[in-house]
């Protein structure tokens, strides 16, 4: 754990002596902070003043019977805290912390929409993830609601709103530049973007609710399908959470194999985005080149896991398939082949004038704004914020493998893409190191189907950034609550702010530099 000298728990204890706040170290991350509505704002104020990297990772809304639990999961530079508040179901209101840390805004809206907690000071205008015609007062994540029975009316015709001089350009839900259905309303004055209004939720399937009615093993395959691109990361984050509740130690070989699979995921995802960015700026050759070199990565994923895309290789207690000794040279050959091609791509992204003209000084996110908005992954690292869960809270074999955290200071689209470009090489090095140091032994241990009561939080570094899971078990074979916060959900606010004031033509490269994934965002 990197130490920058901030002992956040000591600071909190000192400053909160006379407040109704109880600090429980060692649960739900570094510590759980149990408090009441109102006092939580004091806690946030202290955290924000003490540590510049304080940001809301996620908010879990949970139905506790009489009460609603609202758990703020907060990241600081060296800790992960959970601030627990309970509000009565009859009057589920609490004060928003949106004004203290803007990173909370999106999360609060989501909790309002799905479980009905109302945040004073962060009013929601209409539905956030649920469809527009969803009935008021039906909160799908409450235990007594059967949301499957909800029948929706056909949507009303879109209202014509008068935005004065501004022209409204609707991008999505079906648009050539978007591979996924999501709507962004861009208001422009001449060529300049003045406002971006997102409408997410087109891919909202209700996975968090569905996971409560399936067993832990079935859930592995369900959460894997939250996102087809970073599927192993989702599966890994979930099985790690379950293993934490079970207090199950995974064999070292499984840890290394998981690390290799996670890095292959990162490799193919980064190559995909680097190519897609080429497509968005009209550089189709680059797209074809990158996707051609991505195919061998899919091949070695298939060698390792049996599948090209959805790998289905993670399971509670280890991995489902061992790597054969005879396959290691095949994997290494592919990686060294890709490594030989890399200098060409690095040169293109660094020196190619087309890339420079379309990406440099586009969508600049300054370091202080990146910290304020709580962005994660390559978006944060492109703005000079060195956060990476693999280094900050090592999981699997990352603690034993040497690698660098890539950061760029420019904060523009170019920097974000170059972070990914450099991470490709780091990923190859990690896989090669893991293959060379692969421990002998079993690749999985048997895990019980029934999980004892408990709750944990877990983070992994997905290709797009920090992926967060909260899992609560009630002692049966079915989880009580699974909360997923995906990296794109945390990164969208960055796009909404950086697009403003720039020409409309810069929207696609800026947007794709977040590597947006809406099936993750909506779940």
């Amino acid at each position, binding site marked *: 754990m990197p130490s920058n000298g901030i002992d956040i728990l000591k600071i909190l204890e000192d400053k909160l002596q006379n407040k109704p706040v109880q600090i429980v170290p060692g649960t739900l991350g570094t510590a759980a902070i149990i408090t009441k509505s109102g006092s939580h704002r004091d806690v946030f104020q202290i955290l924000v003043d003490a540590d510049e990297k304080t940001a809301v990772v996620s908010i879990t809304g949970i139905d506790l019977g009489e009460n609603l639990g609202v758990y703020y999961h907060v990241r600081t530079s060296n800790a992960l805290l959970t601030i627990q508040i309970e509000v009565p179901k009859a009057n589920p209101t609490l004060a928003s912390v949106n004004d203290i840390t803007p990173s909370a805004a999106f999360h609060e809206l989501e909790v309002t929409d799905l479980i009905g907690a109302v945040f004073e000071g962060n009013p929601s205008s209409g539905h956030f993830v*649920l*469809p*527009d015609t969803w009935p008021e007062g039906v909160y*799908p994540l409450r235990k007594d609601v059967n*949301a*499957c029975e*909800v029948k*929706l009316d*056909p*949507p009303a015709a879109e209202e014509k709103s008068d935005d004065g001089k501004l022209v409204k350009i609707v991008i999505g*839900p*079906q*648009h*050539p530049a978007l*591979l*996924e*259905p999501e709507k962004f309303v861009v208001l422009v004055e001449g060529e300049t973007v003045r406002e971006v209004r997102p409408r997410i*939720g*087109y*891919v*909202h*399937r*209700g*996975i968090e*609710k*569905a996971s409560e*009615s*399936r*067993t832990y*093993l*079935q859930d*592995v*395959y*369900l959460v894997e*399908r*939250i*996102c*087809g*691109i970073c*599927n192993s990361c989702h599966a890994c984050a979930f099985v790690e959470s379950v293993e934490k509740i079970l207090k199950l130690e995974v064999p070292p070989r499984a840890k290394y194999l998981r690390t290799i699979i996670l890095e292959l995921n990162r490799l193919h995802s980064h190559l*995909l985005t680097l190519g897609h960015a080429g497509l968005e700026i009209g550089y189709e050759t680059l*797209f*074809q080149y990158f*996707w*051609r070199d991505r*195919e061998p990565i899919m091949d070695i994923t*298939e060698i390792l896991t*049996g*599948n*090209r*895309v*959805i790998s*289905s290789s993670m399971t509670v207690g280890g991995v489902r398939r061992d790597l054969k000794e005879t396959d290691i040279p095949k994997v290494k050959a592919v990686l060294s082949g890709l490594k030989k091609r890399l200098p060409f791509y690095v040169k293109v992204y660094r020196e190619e004038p087309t890339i420079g003209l379309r990406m440099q000084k586009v969508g600049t996110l300054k370091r202080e704004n990146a910290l304020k908005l709580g962005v994660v992954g390559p978006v944060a690292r492109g703005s000079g914020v060195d956060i990476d869960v693999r280094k900050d809270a090592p999981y699997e074999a990352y603690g034993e493998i040497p690698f660098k955290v890539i950061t760029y200071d420019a904060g523009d689209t170019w920097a974000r893409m170059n972070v990914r470009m450099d991470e490709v090489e780091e990923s190859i090095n990690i896989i090669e190191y893991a293959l060379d140091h692969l421990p002998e032994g079993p690749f999985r241990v048997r895990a019980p189907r029934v999980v004892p009561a408990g709750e944990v939080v877990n983070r992994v570094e997905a290709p797009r950034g920090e992926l967060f899971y909260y899992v609560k078990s009630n002692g049966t074979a079915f989880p009580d609550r699974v909360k997923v916060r995906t990296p794109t959900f945390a990164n969208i606010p960055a796009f909404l702010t950086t697009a403003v004031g720039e020409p409309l033509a810069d929207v696609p490269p800026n947007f794709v530099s977040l590597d947006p*994934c809406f*099936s993750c965002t909506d779940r």
Partner: protein
Amino acid sequence: MTNLAMWARLKSPWVIHFNSGACNGCDIEVVALLTPRYDVERFGIKLEPSPRHADVLLVTGSVTKQCADRLKRIYDQMPQPKFVVAIGACACSGGVFQGTYGTLGGVDKVLPVNAYIPGCPPRPEAIIDGVVKLLNALAAPPAPPKASEEEAATEAPAEEVTEVPAETAPDAPEEVKKDAE
């Protein structure tokens, strides 16, 4: 004139891709079709951004409640004759997401489907095979467009592509599916 149109349609079908609530797994395989290794342009297949120019609608993913209306709208905007291909387990039946509150189920809940391509996700080869089988089925009886569409819809199970290699079809999602049923 009809023959000429049919010839053009078979030699160069323009497809539009719509994600109606997929996990991106099928979508990246659809995009991978355009890239050098699979290169479907050798069959004249071209990915078309506008529904108004497209002959075939490739749908991936189970249909979410919010997308259903938009999916219908895209289908309505396509000119006749038009064909729908459901790609992936979710588009065929709802897949792993059966019984979730946000989804309606497979694409056939909303649109008539001409060909089903199962798999999670189907391999690019399977998708090519499915689309080529659809084209072959169209070429066989030179029926008027309207009739051929209905015929293809009723014949759909026969056209189903099942050549997903056993080792690439994960067994576990099947368990999940059974459970959801």
